[in-house]
């Protein structure tokens, strides 16, 4: 049992090893190659996404630059082609403004002429801004320093976001400015309708992080500017980077600078969105790897299981063969043991024979002498006679025992001989009578007379019946009972039935009783070999042995002995003496 457990453990660990090796060899290359390909793909895809973003950014920068320079050119041309005197006339200016509006629709909100002191000396537009002083505003200060100037977006006096472009000219040694307000909406449209993927959009900030386009709550401009400054991105014409925003979302930024680095155009897109296709591809690839791996694992298990099953079956066969061999040698040993016991017994029997013979004869001699006249009157004569008779009787009993021992010894070999089953049974009953008596068991016989002789080894047949009778006695050890030995002719064969009325054998055990090493006797009491040896012997002579049992009623063994001739029985090279 122990051996079986450990061997099944061996199979399990073998199975584990085989499965492990198959899985490793099958899955590792797949995983490694997939990872490599995926990595390459990711790198090239990222490059593609970055390129696309940069391209977009550059294109838009160009658009915006063009828009702004166009507007500058428009008012530059206006300033150049008209004299200061004309332009500082509000009526004239209004005329020009109407022309501009006709040409560019709503791009220009208003225009005005500002003198060197910052006073608006002419104005054309929807607001009442004539005579307003701009000398303290940032844009005026900026405009005075450069021939062309574009302001940041601000609300100014009108309270709506707008920005101003200016050109500077001189009249009589003093600078004056032609300024135009650009419609914020018009400008904003340039950027606002830019969409990249699902989450991508664009906006423009100035260096301080103020929105130059429609502000969006999705963006924290201060933080972004801080990052950009830290990255030194403002000094480069364009750059692209990833950054995790406050919400923990990773965002891809493409940055280009406008207006000589004063404005920053930002294209931003969620990384998840930008790489959605990549992620999808990755997911599909992982799924394929997973399914493939599962397939490999399942295959590994199935194949290994079958393999192990084969191996264990082969082992089992070998084990059974080994066991059979073991039984055979056990049988040989048993026979040999019986043979040496026989030799010993015969020696003892011979030695005892003579003293017993002398004892009997001496007793007889005393009897003879008692016949004489002088003893006839002795008062103890009767008692003497009784004692002598007793000595004689017991002597004869000894003689009988030695005879039985000798006949047992004579047969301790497996040579095939002609034997009488009935005589054999009688002898075995005699030999086991002592055990039967102690076991409170009665042995009854129903032997058919004049059975034909059979050819078999007497020792072995003795072993068969001895085993069966001893088993029956053991089975009824506690309760006692009756063993019935029946012999009869069945066709050409002889059937011997050994029946007891003991406790019987459970159905579950009945099928296994002929298995070697199967025993229900307590440890040390039975080898589990008796019945399997019987089985072997009976089968060897071409016979059959069957067991029937009813729980609580008893067990019956039927032994069919073929009535064969000497030549039919395979000779076994086992000599008893």
């Amino acid at each position: 049992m122990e051996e079986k457990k450990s061997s099944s453990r061996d199979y399990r660990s073998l199975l584990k090893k085989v499965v492990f090796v198959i899985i490793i060899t099958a899955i590792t290359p797949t995983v490694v190659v997939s990872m490599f390909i995926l990595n390459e793909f990711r790198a090239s895809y990222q490059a593609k996404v970055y390129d696309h973003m940069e391209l977009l950014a550059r294109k838009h920068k160009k658009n915006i630059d063009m828009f702004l320079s166009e507007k500058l050119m428009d008012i530059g041309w206006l300033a150049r082609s008209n004299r200061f005197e004309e332009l500082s006339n509000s009526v004239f200016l209004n005329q020009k403004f109407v022309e501009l509006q006709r040409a560019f629709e709503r791009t220009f909100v208003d225009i005005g002429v500002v003198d060197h002191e910052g006073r608006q000396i002419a104005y054309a537009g929807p607001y009442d801004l004539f005579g307003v002083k701009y000398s303290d505003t940032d844009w005026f200060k900026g405009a005075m320093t450069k021939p062309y100037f574009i302001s940041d977006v601000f609300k100014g006096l009108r309270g709506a976001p707008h920005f101003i472009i200016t050109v500077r000219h001189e009249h009589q040694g003093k600078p004056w400015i032609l300024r135009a307000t650009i419609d914020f909406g018009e400008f904003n449209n340039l950027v606002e309708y830019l969409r990249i993927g699902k989450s991508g959009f664009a906006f423009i900030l100035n260096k301080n992080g103020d929105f130059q386009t429609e502000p969006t709550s999705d963006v924290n401009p201060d933080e972004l500017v801080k990052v950009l400054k830290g990255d030194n991105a403002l000094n480069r014409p364009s750059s692209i980077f990833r950054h995790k925003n406050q919400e923990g979302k990773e965002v891809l930024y493409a940055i280009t600078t406008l207006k000589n680095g004063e404005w920053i155009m930002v294209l931003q897109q969620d990384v998840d969105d930008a790489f959605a296709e990549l992620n999808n591809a990755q997911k599909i690839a992982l799924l394929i790897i997973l399914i493939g791996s599962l397939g490999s694992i399942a295959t590994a298990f199935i194949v290994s299981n079958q393999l192990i099953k084969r191996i264990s079956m082969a082992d089992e066969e070998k084990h059974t063969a080994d066991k059979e061999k073991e039984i055979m040698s056990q049988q040989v040993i048993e026979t040999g043991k019986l043979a040496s016991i026989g030799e010993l017994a015969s020696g003892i029997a011979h030695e005892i024979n003579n003293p017993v013979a002398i004892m009997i004869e001496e007793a007889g001699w005393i009897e003879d002498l008692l016949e004489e006249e002088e003893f006839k009157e002795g008062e103890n004569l009767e008692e003497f006679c009784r004692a002598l008779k007793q000595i004689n009787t017991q002597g004869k009993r000894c003689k009988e025992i030695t005879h039985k021992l000798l006949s047992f010894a004579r047969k301790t070999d497996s040579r095939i001989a002609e034997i009488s089953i009935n005589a054999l049974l009688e002898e075995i009953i005699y030999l086991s009578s002592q055990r039967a008596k102690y076991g409170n068991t009665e042995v009854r016989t129903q032997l058919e007379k004049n059975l034909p002789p059979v050819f078999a080894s007497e020792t072995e047949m003795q072993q068969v019946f001895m085993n069966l009778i001893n088993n029956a006695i053991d089975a009824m050890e506690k309760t006692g009972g009756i063993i019935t030995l029946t012999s009869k002719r069945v066709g050409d064969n002889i059937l011997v039935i050994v029946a007891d009325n003991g406790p019987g054998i459970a159905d579950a055990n009945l099928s296994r009783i002929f298995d070697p090493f199967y025993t229900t006797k307590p440890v040390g009491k039975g080898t589990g070999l008796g019945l399997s040896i019987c089985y072997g012997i009976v089968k060897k002579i071409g016979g059959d042995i069957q067991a029937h049992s009813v729980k609580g009623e008893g067990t019956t063994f039927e032994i069919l002995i073929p009535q064969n001739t000497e030549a039919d029985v395979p000779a076994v090279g086992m000599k008893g003496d």
Partner: protein
Amino acid sequence: MSKKEDTLSTPLRLLLIDDEVGYVNVLANRLSKRTFQVGKANSGAEAFQLLRQKDFDVAVLDLKMEDMDGIEILKILKKMAPELVVIMLTGHGSAEAAREGISQGAYDYLTKPCELTELIEKINEAYAQRSTG
């Protein structure tokens, strides 16, 4: 016993050969008491010596003895006294040897230990056979 009335006048001369002294002695006593004239030998050599000294009608020979094989003794006895009828005593289960003895000229065998009456019967039977044969 009744049958042996005619032998009373000339007692049957019997030679007992067995290396078991006690057995030979007690058997001799009992047989002498039954009108046999008994000679005792505890070995083959003693038997041959006795046989040289006087004649015997029947010999009872134990086949299993220390100094010499019973069959050998039988052969010599038959050579020394072809008229002598030999009854063999064998151990149980030694029928083979007994059968060989018969082929060597022994009359019959008995298994040891045997009943005295059985032995006497066999002796008389053998003697009668000799007389007639």
